[in-house]
């Protein structure tokens, strides 16, 4: 088994209102110096050894992320 992490982030040019809401809350809480926050999703998959990278990319592209509005990165990590 391998552990695979898929990070999904809103594309840079897409308005990220959730990230903006977090960013505007930080100064209210007394945290200064944070100029931008963007919010995404992280998926962790336990994957059989015979699942190849092309299959993982397909899973990310068709289900986990919507490539119209989101970028994704697939990486295998040490379990």
């Amino acid at each position, binding site marked *: 088994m391998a552990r695979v992490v898929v990070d999904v982030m809103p594309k840079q*040019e897409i*308005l990220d*209102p959730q990230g903006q809401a977090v960013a505007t809350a930080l100064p209210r809480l007394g945290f200064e110096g944070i100029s931008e926050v963007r919010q995404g999703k992280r998926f962790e998959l336990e994957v059989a050894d015979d699942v190849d990278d092309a299959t993982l990319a397909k899973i990310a592209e068709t*289900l*986990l992320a919507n490539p119209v509005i989101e970028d994704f990165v697939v990486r295998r990590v040490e379990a």
Partner: protein
Amino acid sequence: MSPKIGVITFPGTLDDVDAQRAARRAGAEAVPLWHADADLRGVDAVIVPGGFSYGDYLRCGAIAKFAPVMGEVVRAAGQGMPVLGICNGFQILCEAGLLPGALTRNSALHFVCRDQWLKVENNTSAWTSRYDQGAELLVPLKSGEGAYMADEAVLDELEGEGRVLFRYSGDDPNGSLRGIAGITDARGRVAGLMPHPEHAIDPLTGPTDDGLGMFLSVLDVLVAA
């Protein structure tokens, strides 16, 4: 025989009953379609109604696009069958690739629930022929992820080909790019919009009956066929 309009029910769909009622009010026979069945029951058009299909887990519409019935809808749409996606149905049609773009969280992060004025931008599609160009409609809007997004090239293509069906009048309620409330595919047969015409078919239960024109429009297409 009346034309048959199918209305899909997914787990979490809310507006299928109103969509069926709207289809019947326009003169069609409403045919319930079940998400797990790869069968359109011989319908002449399909409505993908609003709600929260599969709980909207992951992303709105992302799981619904894999439902067996949606495979049939995509196939039938390819052959020219009129398809209308309303709210969650619009999100599903975008996820399924029948319409370009995507719907994201409202810019103000709040769920918007109000009666909304729309302007008819294109009255030549299968779903809008009963309206006058530039007509203003008042129909309910109720959504948390209604901001229409697409890249500049897609937006320019939609505008250039007259595929923007409806634009929000006045304030943009959810941050949709260029105020887009509804679009159509290249043939004018597949349409999607965030506001709810099926909730505005009778002044007794809605703000107006302005939404009925969409269902009468498609009946015109189906009866003529």
